[in-house]
């Protein structure tokens, strides 16, 4: 935040006890305290260093333990605070010094310059709209992601990116290649791609989670894809999937504990005449319900099995 020149202003109480109170911090506790005190007849000075009172509560969706909407609780109190005749709001202010004894304090408060006359301002917001510098992003200092990656990974990513034009349009092809190289998209790789292609991290993450070709968790050594296209569906693919799930003990998208198999589903491979189709690594297999057990045994022992004759096809 740019430094704002301060105007020293002291709020001094004279020695006669007038029953005024200063509440420091305008969060929900400060607000409630101020309201209670003000209702009891005390003059209250509510001080907060921020531009507005409310604290952390407006950022919350729900409150513990009743799950009530937090703004619904807070908003009426904000209004009441600003309207209460006994409360003097001092926002953008900091307590600088405190002297005296209970019942007779002198507080020094530094009120930051607002450059806006609070008495006249109606909070219409027009000044915000037209201010030309309000879109200057306030980012943490940029760090080179490469310092957190091992050299080998950096080299792999650099090699992939060098095969594509270095701009936004390469994002999907680059991620496709990297997903193949790393078998998934590790977080550091995503960060690095965002840095090199100069695409916001949020956009890279959006793309990486939008398309089914990408995964953020490591895949197993072998991938089993079950086609769930319409033709496969009517020919029993859901039952084949159930069978595979039972046999491997995993759900689609998961990997077996030994890291051998990852189960995936795909919305049509375009080999509908074969259905139901299961692709193990790159081999297409025609798997009718009940046949997966044999297939996986053969696969494990490394024997390629010929495609069984389709059912229901008469010569």
């Amino acid at each position, binding site marked *: 935040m740019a430094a704002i020149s301060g105007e020293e202003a002291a709020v001094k109480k004279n020695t006669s006890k007038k029953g005024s109170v200063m509440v420091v911090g305008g969060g929900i506790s400060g607000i409630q305290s101020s309201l209670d005190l003000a209702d009891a007849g005390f003059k209250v000075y509510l001080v907060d260093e921020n531009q507005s009172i409310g604290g952390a509560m407006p950022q919350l969706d729900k409150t513990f333990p009743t799950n009530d909407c937090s703004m619904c609780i807070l908003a009426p109190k904000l209004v009441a605070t600003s309207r209460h005749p006994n409360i003097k709001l001092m926002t953008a202010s900091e307590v600088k010094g405190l002297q005296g004894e209970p019942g007779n304090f002198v507080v020094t408060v530094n009120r930051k310059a607002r450059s806006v006359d609070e008495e006249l301002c109606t909070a219409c917001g027009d000044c915000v709209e037209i201010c030309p510098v309000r879109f200057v992003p306030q980012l943490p200092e940029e760090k080179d992601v490469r310092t957190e990656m091992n050299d080998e990974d950096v080299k792999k990513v650099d090699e992939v990116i060098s095969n594509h034009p270095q*701009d*936004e*349009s*390469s*994002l*999907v*092809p680059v*991620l*496709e290649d990297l997903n193949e190289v790393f078998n998934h998209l590790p977080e550091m790789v995503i960060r690095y791609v965002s840095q090199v*292609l100069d*695409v916001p991290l949020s*956009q890279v993450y*959006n*793309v990486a989670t*939008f*398309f*089914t*070709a*990408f995964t953020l968790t490591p895949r197993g050594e072998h991938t089993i894809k079950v086609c*769930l*296209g*319409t*033709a*496969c*569906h*009517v*020919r029993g693919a859901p*039952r084949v999937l*159930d*069978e595979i799930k*039972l*046999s491997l003990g995993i759900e689609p998208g998961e990997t077996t504990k030994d890291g051998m198999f990852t189960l995936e589903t*795909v*919305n*049509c*491979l*375009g*080999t*509908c*005449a*074969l*259905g139901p*189709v299961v692709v193990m690594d*790159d*081999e*297409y*297999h*025609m798997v*009718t*319900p*009940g046949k997966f057990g044999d297939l996986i045994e053969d696969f494990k022992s490394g024997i390629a099995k*010929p*495609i069984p004759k*389709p*059912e*229901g*096809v*008469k*010569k």
Partner: protein
Amino acid sequence: MSPLKKISSVKELEQLIDRLEKEKRGWKGKTIVVPGGTCGNARGAGNILKAVNEAVEKEGLKDVKVRATGCIGYCSQEPMILILPERVLYPDLDPARVLEIVQKTVKKGKIVEELLWKDPAGKTISKMEELPYYNKQKRMITGNTENLDPNSISDYLAIGGYRAYMKALNMTPEKVIEEVKSSGLRGRGGAGFSTGMKWEFARKAEGDIKYIICNGDEGDPGAFMDRNLLEGSPHSVLEGLLIGAYAIGASKGYLYIRKEYPLAVRTIRNALTQIRDIGLLGENILGSGMSFELEVYEGAGAFVCGEETALMASIEGRAGEPRPRPPFPAQSGLWEKPTNINNVKSWANVTLIMNKGADWYSKVGTETSTGTMLFSLVGKSNNSGLVEVPMGITLKEMIFDIGGGIANGNKFKAIQTGGPSGGCIPESLLDLKIDYDSLTKAGAMMGSGGMIVMDDKTCMVDVAGYFVKFLMDESCGKCAPCREGLVQMDIILERIKRGEDRGGDIELLEELASVMKDASLCALGQTAPNPILTTLKYFKDEYEAHIIDKKCPAHVCKALITYSIDKKKCVGCTLCATKCPVNAISGTAKKPHTIDPEECVKCGMCHDVCNFDAVEVV
């Protein structure tokens, strides 16, 4: 054959094509065609090819060519070989019998009767075009598949390839557009908008750079026409793109092909390299002044990317979410430049139109839907595969003549067209003519051309639920009616499938459907209720069976069925008990077994493995 040299003028290309055509005409030997493609290879076309090569070598045949081609469409009878020029087809072939065919048919011209296709009565047919699967087809776009090796540009040039492009170069761009317009070609991606009109908009749009895109993101489940075309005849698509680029004035093009089609991507990449090498891409092509570049873009797996604005978003490096139209891509498309997007099949049709002329083309098909349409006929029919038929053929001909009826003697129930946006058409409408308008009228749609045949073992509530789940998965989530509507539809359908409806569920589904139709942002959401609406319209009795009788007539919905063993039929072979994944079946050998309903997960395995028909489903 030595690699072709770079060509720098139209005349040179003309001479090259003339020479290659002459060579081909002069060839009097036989050609053994082994159709492959993704599905052919999966069924063992590789082994057949190996056997053919070995046999030809063993027999020392000199005047025989062996050609590995893309799929010729009859997927359920693969692997096969086709012998040219006689066009004898040996379907569903065992590699061990290949030598016999080479020795008899290729060498001596004698047909091996027992390996031919047989009809149910046992009559054999040798010629490909005489098979019932082929004789109602009109293979205008796919017909060259057997005549060319998809990886050889010489093969394509030898059948007159790239002549259509040269013809276009001799015309003005406006004339080319006029020709496409008068051919009546409508977009083969599904919506059926006039291709010529679309081109005209893009031509007239102002912009320093214009783009064209070939949409090969064939996401409809049950459809694979684009894959087959790209794998079998990649150059006919590229030629269409060249013609389109010339007509529109585009300088850059993209081929957007889904990653799930690795072979198609490889084939088209190879074809691109070939045309770049001979000078059909780049600056000042053939000295015509036209400059054009093409690039392959692999789609990363999102159904919604078949929608044009979502597709462009993903090329630009963003998540594939659609945006509202207008502005239409013709005005503001890729990187806000004028862009023209057509489906793979549309581009291939363009090549054909330029070759044969708009008059010839518009005579095929019906008045409002000209030309042929490619369909993938799959599901429960006897024959399945890729079918190219003239527009206007009836569904009945499609299913019972070409498709050979329903497999396993089951009864036909419905045919689903148009993918998840389409609908299910019942038996009573089988005389419906297949064209854009008739299908839309029936509540379904042409879509990209997937046709899934369903028999009486298919539960229509389950099918509707399947599409809703599919779309729920693929909805990008940008607009609320689609995102939330589909979730609610899924909840309601699951409820019905479990027999736990709350009363009024059907009415609720209908209400949801009408909101989604009106309020969704893109076609995915607007058409998403179609499968529910058509199944409700034509198969309401099935919904009612679930809701009122708590029964699933097709025995699909697990919550509404129970498995039991008929004690009179069971011989106690123990097969079902060993296969049961949850050990729910008990009994001693040679004594009738029983199923524990508490343990049973209703996987149906026992029913499938029983050799004595003893497992009953109620």
